[in-house]
């Protein structure tokens, strides 16, 4: 049982780390907490379900479509909204509220467009044979999802460390003022990161039916909270931290489900509270904020 919990926890943890990555990027670069993050994950889930049921398109293919589609949507959303917010009197709070409004809009549109019933994908489309490891067997869909997640996390890492835009993004994460002062294209970079962040959320959404079980309009805010917890555990603004946060979350949930199943829903919330009160800068955080 212990081995199963840990291995399954790692598989889920890698996925949830990927699920939180976009939230982390956007916060790191724009200081904006995208409260609609979970709703973009849900939208990605709907895209996968509809592509599969209408056209028998495998979710692995839908991943690409989801990224492109939501990158474009978010990129277009950036310019009328974010610059106006960053200029306002209280950008952090107002952006939080604005994205909360957006999350409510998306949730409402989900219900109007797709109905209230949860939708799901058969796990078997990712391979019917289970994966055997250390005497336990796991769903092949979980393994594939975890691999895809790892690949995407790796790709994001390469993007941040080996491209000009990634370099600018990291500079802005360090200090927005200094990045602007040294002539880096802050606005364009932010818009691209905003697109990438939401694109990644939608990609995670495509995989989400396999890991969460179903796609349901009402799960958005809960997913955002989980993503926020993961990001805070790993340190806000540190992309690699998402992986660590995801693993802590995945393994904790699986252990709780195995040993204290009736309390397992508490895990993300308790983890969040413990970490914000004990170490607000996260496990990988350097230094502490001054009062």
């Amino acid at each position, binding site marked *: 049982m212990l081995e199963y919990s840990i291995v399954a926890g790692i598989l889920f943890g890698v996925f949830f780390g990927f699920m939180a990555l976009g939230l982390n990027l956007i916060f790191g670069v724009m200081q904006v*907490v995208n409260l609609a993050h979970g709703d973009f994950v849900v939208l990605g889930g709907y895209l996968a379900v509809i592509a599969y049921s209408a056209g028998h398109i495998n979710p692995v293919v839908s991943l690409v479509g989801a990224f492109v589609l939501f990158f474009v949507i978010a990129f277009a959303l950036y310019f009328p909204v974010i610059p106006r917010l960053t200029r306002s009197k209280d950008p952090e709070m107002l952006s939080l*509220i*604005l994205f909360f*409004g957006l999350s*409510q809009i998306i*949730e*409402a549109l989900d219900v109007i467009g797709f109905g209230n019933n949860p939708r799901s994908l058969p796990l078997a489309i990712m391979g019917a044979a289970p994966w055997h490891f250390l005497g336990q067997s796991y769903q092949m869909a979980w393994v594939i999802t975890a691999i895809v997640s790892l690949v995407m996390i790796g790709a994001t890492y390469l993007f941040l460390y080996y491209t000009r835009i990634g370099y600018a993004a990291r500079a802005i994460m360090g200090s927005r003022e200094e990045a602007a002062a040294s002539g880096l294209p802050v606005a364009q970079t932010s818009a691209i990161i905003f697109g990438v962040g939401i694109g990644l959320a939608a990609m995670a959404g495509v995989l989400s039916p396999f890991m969460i079980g179903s796609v349901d309009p009402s799960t958005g805010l809960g997913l955002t909270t989980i993503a*926020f917890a993961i990001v805070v555990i790993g340190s806000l603004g540190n992309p690699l931290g998402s992986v660590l946060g995801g693993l802590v979350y995945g393994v904790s949930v699986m252990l709780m489900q195995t040993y204290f199943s009736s*309390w397992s829903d508490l895990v993300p*919330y308790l983890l969040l509270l413990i970490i914000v009160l004990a170490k607000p800068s996260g496990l990988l955080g350097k230094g502490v904020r001054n009062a």
Partner: protein
Amino acid sequence: MLSSGRTHLRSHRGVNALIPLLLLAAFSLAPLVYANHAVIFQMMAFMVLAQGVNLLYGFTGYLPFGYVGFFGIGAYGMGIGIELFHLPGLAALLVGALFAVVIALILSPLLRLSGAYFAISSLAASEVLYNIVANPALTHITNGPYGESLVQSYHPLTSYVAMVVLLVLTTVLVIVIKNTPFGRALLAIREDPVSAEMAGIAVVRTRTTVWILSALIGGLTGAIFGWHLSVFYPSTVFDLSISILAIVFTLFGGGGTAIGPILGSVVLYGLYNAIGISAPQYFELIYGLLIVLLVLFLPGGVVSLLQRRGSYVP
């Protein structure tokens, strides 16, 4: 609009007194002219909750997504007071209030956080409360997921009157705080906690006081609500949309004033009643759009239209 607090309480005495009196009159008479008492009662409950959110968000800038936690724990305090301690209704209300205050004290370290950290952590805290109250392991205390039944103490008239009283008192409290140095101190803390300390304001104690007052208001609302409902489940009284609506009503009307949350509750709860019950997704769409538009074009809410013209807004 912010000059000299004490004189303001006096110089605007008329308009300040008018609001609680109007509320008192309106909700005393409403049941005589409008048959759907449940709607009137819920509107009052949301007004009080919006004022509780207002006290915290409007004056200190802390946005409590998890405000419903106090509401839920108040309802359960009421339930435990009646079911476990066999107290009469009004005494059980105090148990609900006490529970909410105790939880607020336990959660007061959350006030060290700011912005999004506080907002989301408070949401997490309310989910933790919900999961504890609803846990089958606590069935002997809370009846777990099976809910509370207080039918033997059901007294709709008393609980209705209790809600009217709570609404009037809460509104008076907000007006008093707004117009006294205490309220000014809250604004100062929101602007600059370090300068506030140097001006002699005990920042932590002042913030904690407001947090506890706000929790007390939420807890009492939940207790009276649970009493009035008499049968409820954890999922009813810890429903996150209760927080969400209270926040939306406050933002729409305008925080930091007494009238903003009332205005927001009347307009939006009215709208909710008109379309939200049969087609909640359309109501959600409308208030989602409203929030986005407010943030972009009118961050101070509807009352800021008056404030911009220099009028005193209670």
